[in-house]
Structure formats: C-alpha cells, structure tokens
C-alpha cells in the first residue's frame, strides 16, 4: 500500500521535515538529515559576512560554516523549504520570501511572522496578511501558526494548501501542549495536510502527532541538540513511521474500566 505524503502536488515517502540549524558541525547536519530519511529541509537567509566592505568578516568561521551547510544541502538534492524566521511583519516576510525564491529557486516557503520574542509565537494577523499576498504572488505557503482553529481556517481562506500548527514554542521540546486544540483542528480541517511544526522534543511526541492524524512533523532542535544527532534522527524516523502505521491501523477506543484480554470461557477449576 502506498501511503505517501502529498504537499502542493509533490509526493514524499517521508513524513518528517527537518531543519538544518544548530548541529555540532555541517558534516553532522548532513549525516543526521540523511539518517532521518527526510525529503524536505528547512533553511534560511541572513546577511552575508564575506563582504570586504565595512563588515570586515571575510572568511569568518561563521561564514565558512554557512557556506559548508549550503553546499551539503545542495548536494543532498532535497526539497528546499526556506523560512522567514525572525520576520516580525508581513512586509519583512514578503521581502525575505522574494529573496529566498530567487536564491533557492523554489516557490515553497515556510512562512513565519513572529509576534512575541518571549515565546516566538506567530502573529496571526501578520501571518494571514503575508500568506494572502504570497499566495497571490505564486508562492506555495506552508505557514507556521498557533494551534488556533480560526487562524487555521483564515489561512485556508488565504489560499494555503498546507498548515503547520505548533506543538509548543520553538526549541522548547515540550511536545503537544494543547491536544484539545490540535485534535479540534484535525477534526475540523480534513481538506489539507496538517504538519506539527515546532516544540517536538522526543520521538514519542512525534509518534503521538502522527497517531492523532497529523500528516507529518517538522522539527530541528530535538535532533540537532541530541547527544548523538545521527542516532536521534534514526529514532525520529522510526517513531514517525510507527505513529503513521498506528493511525492507519486505527487505535482502540479508551475505556474507563478494565476488560480482560484473556478469554474468560473455560476458566479453570478455582473459579467454580
């Protein structure tokens, strides 16, 4: 049985989208991404530090590392998913999106518009405004949003064909903090793929997201900051496959009271 993930008309075997940041080294990033089986990788844009004008940072360690990461990502041949991390208004996000499309030669975009620095919570108003404009400009927008059903519906109205509600704030590893909200979104929105983006800290949490019927998971820190990132990437791969299988198999209904699993007919003599 084929059970592929379909996003904006492209199909993928893996249901894990992975970030490229925070790894101990570019080589470990490459190895972990490959071990994860992910076919979609997030990346970003920042001010180039190799200019020899005022910056004076030509050949800096940071710029060399950024160059290596970009080289490895190109070699891997995955679907690129540039983000607009750090943008705090629709205008900033739209400008960064246009710059990303030119460099990365893809109209796929992980749209982030951040409303609060404390928990990096998406600004729903800026997000919806930016999404509507970017869809008009031909972008395939994957918005990073809160677990708010109405915001999700407005993003659909704006033309998004994938939604990415958070499990918990970025980098916290708290897992699926509001399962009621998330399951409500899944129950109400069945027409497009839903991806849990951010907050996943453990493979069990990723498995749970898939069990709940989410189509995929996007994560970064949980793998990059593990003691053994490559091994953790394998763990997430297995957990996500397991969670999806469990969802397809259909979970049993929870019961309040015990029910014997061993047949009760033909009980031995001591029950007579």
């Amino acid at each position, binding site marked *: 049985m084929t059970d592929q993930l379909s996003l904006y008309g492209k199909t993928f075997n893996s249901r894990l989208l992975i*970030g*490229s*940041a*925070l*790894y101990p080294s570019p080589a470990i*990033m490459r190895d972990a991404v490959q071990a994860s089986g992910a076919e979609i990788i*997030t*990346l*970003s*844009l*920042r*001010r*180039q530090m*190799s*200019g*020899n*004008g*005022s*910056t004076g940072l*030509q050949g800096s360690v940071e710029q060399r590392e*950024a*160059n290596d*990461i*970009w080289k490895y*990502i190109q070699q891997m041949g995955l679907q690129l998913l*540039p*983000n607009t*991390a750090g943008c705090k208004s629709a*205008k*900033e996000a739209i*400008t*960064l999106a*246009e*710059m*990303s499309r*030119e*460099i*990365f030669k893809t109209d796929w975009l992980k749209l982030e518009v951040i409303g609060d620095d404390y928990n990096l919570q998406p600004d729903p108003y800026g997000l919806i405004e930016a999404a509507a404009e970017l869809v008009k400009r031909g972008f395939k927008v994957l918005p990073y949003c809160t677990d708010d059903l109405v915001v999700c519906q407005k993003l659909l109205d704006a033309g998004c064909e994938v939604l990415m509600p958070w499990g918990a704030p*970025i*980098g916290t590893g708290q897992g699926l903090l509001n399962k009621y909200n998330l399951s409500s979104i899944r129950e109400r929105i069945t027409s497009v793929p839903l991806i849990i983006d951010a907050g996943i800290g453990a493979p069990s949490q990723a498995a749970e997201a898939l069990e709940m019927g989410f189509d995929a998971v996007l994560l*970064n*820190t949980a793998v990059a900051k593990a003691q053994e990132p490559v091994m953790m990437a394998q763990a997430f791969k297995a957990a996500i496959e397991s969670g999806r299988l469990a969802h397809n198999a259909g979970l049993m209904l929870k019961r309040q009271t015990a029910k014997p699993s061993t047949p009760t007919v033909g009980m031995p003599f001591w029950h007579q």
Partner: protein
Amino acid sequence: MEVLVNGETAQVSSTQLVDILKELGFEGDFAVAIDGEFIPRSMYAEQTLTAGNQLDVLSPIAGG
C-alpha cells in the same frame, strides 16, 4: 558616498548596484534588498543607490 551595508556604514565610490556589490566583495549566492525592498538580479545593472540607502545582501544559512 555613504550607505548602510548589512547594518553598518560603508563608503562606496559607485552609485550602480552592480558595481557596489563588486566593490564590497560579495560573492557566491546572494539576494539583495534596498531599503527593505527586494531587488531582482535582473535589475542589478540599472539599479542605482543614493547616499543613506540601506543595502541588505543575504546568503543561505541553516534554518529550522
């Protein structure tokens, strides 16, 4: 003239964007914005800057 390049002041001798990028030594894959507006690569040859413009030159990095 003096412009703001990636957040820092810089003296440049040209007014043409394409020449300024060469003068400042930007290389590899990058995209450009002036005063927060995206400038497509096809416009580099005809785009000019004036004193005080804010030039942003962005390149790929890791991201989550």
